[in-house]
């Protein structure tokens, strides 16, 4: 792990990159990284996340500034701008059931060829997917989802990159930290090694590439 200034962290992300971004309605989203991507004018991004939050909040800022070419999310109901851009054909939106989305990300991070889920069988979600029967029950084969970058919001990071999360700001964060080529973390607090006891570590340090310092 290396600590890295915010501007430099965002500069590592090229136009057209795929990003997994932590957060649930903006809670647990690394807001400063989103702001910096907007400021640096990044575009044509693919965003994989739970939702697109609201205009002006978290991932919603990237939507407002039209930086997102494609969103793979479970919910856009709280962001009218996402819906408008989707209906106007300006943004591609792939809607995935929330439990399936997190499992597809987990499958990539855990080295699996996919997951078999009963969710979506017999609905529009099954279109184009393989159905597999196991012990008399039908499942959909859902394929792994990986990304170029994971943008993670942590509560604590130590100087090795061991992470903890807080309350409901955990959500997608520890899972996306397994599934991206490069993992960039913003932590509320950076603490000395040893401050986070081994049993409290939620994401082990070797998974983390960069921890952002300074805002």
């Amino acid at each position, binding site marked *: 792990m290396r600590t890295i200034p915010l501007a430099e962290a965002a500069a590592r992300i090229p136009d057209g990159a795929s990003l997994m971004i932590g957060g*649930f*309605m*903006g*809670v*647990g989203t690394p807001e400063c990284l989103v702001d910096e991507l907007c400021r640096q004018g990044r575009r044509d991004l693919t965003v994989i996340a*739970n*939702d697109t*939050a*609201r205009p002006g909040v978290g991932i919603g800022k990237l939507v407002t500034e039209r930086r997102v070419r494609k969103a793979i*999310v*479970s*919910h*856009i*109901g*709280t962001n009218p701008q996402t*819906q408008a851009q*989707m209906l106007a054909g300006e943004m591609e939106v792939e*809607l995935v*059931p*929330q*439990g*399936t989305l*997190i*499992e597809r990300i*987990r499958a990539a991070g855990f080295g699996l060829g996919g997951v078999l*889920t*009963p*969710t*979506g*069988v*017999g*609905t*529009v*979600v099954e279109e184009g997917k393989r159905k597999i029967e196991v012990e008399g029950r039908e499942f959909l084969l859902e394929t792994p989802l990986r990304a170029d970058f994971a943008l993670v919001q942590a509560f604590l990071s130590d100087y090795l990159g061991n992470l903890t*999360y*807080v*309350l*409901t*700001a*955990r*959500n*997608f*964060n*520890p*899972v996306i930290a397994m599934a991206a080529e490069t993992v960039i973390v913003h932590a509320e607090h950076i603490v000395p090694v040893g401050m986070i006891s081994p049993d409290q570590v939620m994401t082990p340090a070797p998974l983390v590439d960069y921890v952002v310092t300074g805002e």
Partner: protein
Amino acid sequence: MDAQTVIARRIAQELRDGMLVNLGIGIPTLVANHVPAGIHVFFQSENGLIGTGALPEEGLTQARLTDAGGRPVGALPGASTFDSAMSFGLIRGGHVDLTVLGGLQVDARGRLANWMVPGKMVPGMGGAMDLVTGVRRVIVAMQHMAKGRPKIVRECNLPLTSMRPVDLVVTELAVIAFPQGRATLLETAPGVSVSDVRAATEADLQMPDDVPVMKL
């Protein structure tokens, strides 16, 4: 008593001590206000919380403690938090005992549509498909009709949420279950006749000899 209170109160009677319960947004959320005395249930919020409590008073909210709608909530002593994979493992894995969800349509066999109106409203399914597919018992809380049109229909013309039939539908008029895949009237609301319910329902309703009135 207004329609929402009738629905929430009746559903609260389905709660049992020790249950793990997930409440959807809207009328389902109101069920938490009517938990019978002496019963303790755990409420799950799918963004990663068991032990959801009432919203703390202003000034004591915590920005990183929210419900599935992103609004601040409280957490009771004994609450736990976890990531989204765990949260949906709880849901899909059958560890959640009961979910209460809103509905747009329910068909004669009990299959629910509640996540989109093509061309009009495409919010995304969020956690609804996983909840209906995986939770042990599914209750739909909804108004009996929408804009004068029945919501309990022969066939849903809106996209289904899951093939798994729901267990119970509770409206301001009636309680309906689906034994052997057939919509069956179990109870009527106070002051509502069986023929009132039939008139407001498109699906064929099975009528047991005795249809009691909801005890609220």
